[in-house]
């Protein structure tokens, strides 16, 4: 069985994709560092980062990115946990509801922003509903540049709507690794639904909760199109800084500096993710 070709075969099969990823990730990564850290003469410089720090939008972008992260991630982890426990109770029709809850994941960040724009815009559906109900007498400007709370709320809602399903899928997979007998035994000893969730399921779900948290953090650093769709440039974020520096100001070195900040933040989170205790590989594979 183990002929020479048999030993070479796996490498032959893996090599093309490895080479492709190396070319499309490692080379541009090196180029990004070069763009961000090299001066025009080729020497080392921090000038691009100094320009970035001096950029009127940078501190706002940094603050807003983390503000959105702090607001969105806990909210959607809590929501996803509630949905996961609900679906996992296996009520009749839970499969259909589970499918419905995951559909927003099919929507891109840009499209999600536009979907919720239909709700939050001045003559949108939110104002229409409130007006018809008599709650307001004229449209509220949720997305006006001077309504910071309104802008943030709309973005938090749109982004939570779209990506809660990602957390949900991680948690559902985690729940399925927990033997049902544990919960059933606890029920036998008189533990109610709530106590079983808190004392039996939650502690065992911790690895999945941790990975879900970190995965969402990584994506939060890239939050961009949903913000542009709802707030335009009135709410700067880090990834938006990369885009605007490049697309509007044609300043690829500044764009690269922004990009390096996002990459660094993501790498810290990825290292964190890999060092988390995950479910046993063997358990998962078969």
């Amino acid at each position, binding site marked *: 069985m183990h002929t020479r070709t048999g030993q070479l075969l796996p*490498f032959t099969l893996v090599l093309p994709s490895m080479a492709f990823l190396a070319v499309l990730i490692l080379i541009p990564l090196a180029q990004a560092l070069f763009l961000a850290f090299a001066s025009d003469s080729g020497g080392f410089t921090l000038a691009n980062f100094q320009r970035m720090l001096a950029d009127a939008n940078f501190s706002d972008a940094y603050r807003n990115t983390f503000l959105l992260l702090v607001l969105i991630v806990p909210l959607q982890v809590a929501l996803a946990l509630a949905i996961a426990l609900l679906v996992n109770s296996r009520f009749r029709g839970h499969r259909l509801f589970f499918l*419905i809850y*995951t559909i927003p994941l099919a929507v891109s960040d840009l499209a999600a922003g536009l979907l919720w724009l239909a709700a939050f815009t001045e003559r*949108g559906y939110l104002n229409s509903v409130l*007006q018809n109900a008599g709650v307001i007498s004229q449209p509220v400007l949720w997305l006006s540049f001077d309504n910071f709370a309104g802008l943030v709320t709309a973005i938090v809602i749109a982004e939570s*709507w779209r990506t809660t399903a990602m957390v949900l899928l991680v948690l559902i997979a985690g729940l399925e690794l927990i033997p049902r007998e544990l919960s059933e035994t606890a029920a036998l000893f008189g533990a109610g639904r709530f106590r079983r969730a808190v004392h039996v399921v939650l502690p065992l779900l911790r690895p999945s909760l941790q990975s879900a948290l970190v995965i969402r953090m990584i994506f939060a650093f890239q939050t961009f199109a949903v913000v542009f769709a709802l707030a335009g440039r009135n709410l700067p974020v880090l990834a938006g800084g990369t885009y605007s520096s490049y697309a509007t100001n044609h300043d690829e070195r500044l764009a690269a500096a922004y990009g390096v900040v996002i990459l660094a933040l993501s790498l810290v989170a990825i290292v964190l993710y890999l060092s988390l205790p995950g479910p046993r590989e063997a358990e*998962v594979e078969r």
Partner: protein
Amino acid sequence: MKAGTLDRGLIYGTALVLAIWALIPFYFIAISAFTPQSNVSAYPKPLFPGSVSVATMQLFLESSGVVPAMLNSLAVALLTVVVSLALGAPAAYALARFRFRGRAAFRAVVLVTKLFPVAILAIPLAAIFVRLGLYDSLISVALVHSAMAIPFVILIVGAVFVALPHDLEEAAETLGSSRWGAFRRVALPPAMPGLAAAAIFAFVISWNEVFAASILTVRARTLPAQVLASLSTSPLALKFIAAFFMVLPAVIFFILIRRYLRTVWGPR
């Protein structure tokens, strides 16, 4: 059983509220996209519009460049499917079938690339593509999208081959079939649905991607890149119509591959 009824009422009530939360933006965008021209700026808008019309949609589709952008998106997505499957599927097969040196390292690479913000690399890639004469081409966008899709293709296809028993292939080889023949006749047919799912997933990744597509193109815009570039200038009605066409294929394809979602976002 009063308590049981109450319990069930609570479960279905919650489930229903959550379902409305998940679906209502789709409803908003659909009724927005089919609003007759006379009602585009009506306020307050009825939640159940008395009339729908494709006239506004037709007008914008004919004039705004949405259709060419959609064709670009389609070409890029199909190219992404071909490249990511051609490269990812063999690697997935190797991971599922062989124990080889570097296997663990390769698995780690797949995991890291799944989470790595590949799109951010579009900035330095733009400089490289300019030098190669590939800038502002559909090919350059498809290459970046392929890099984003490959880890997902490997996860889906890998899970499919892990689930198929290896014995059948070995039996076919013992009976005189070549390794390739055994693969093609025994392993491939039952893996086809999984390969199709991987292809669809790659398609959706590409169809939805906006950052790299915006950075790497000026005229060869995909639909999301076109919409993003004209966000500050295009009328609301056009935004909603464009969003409708961005969302529709993605959602349909997504529902088709629902069985494989846990493979992608499940435990690592």
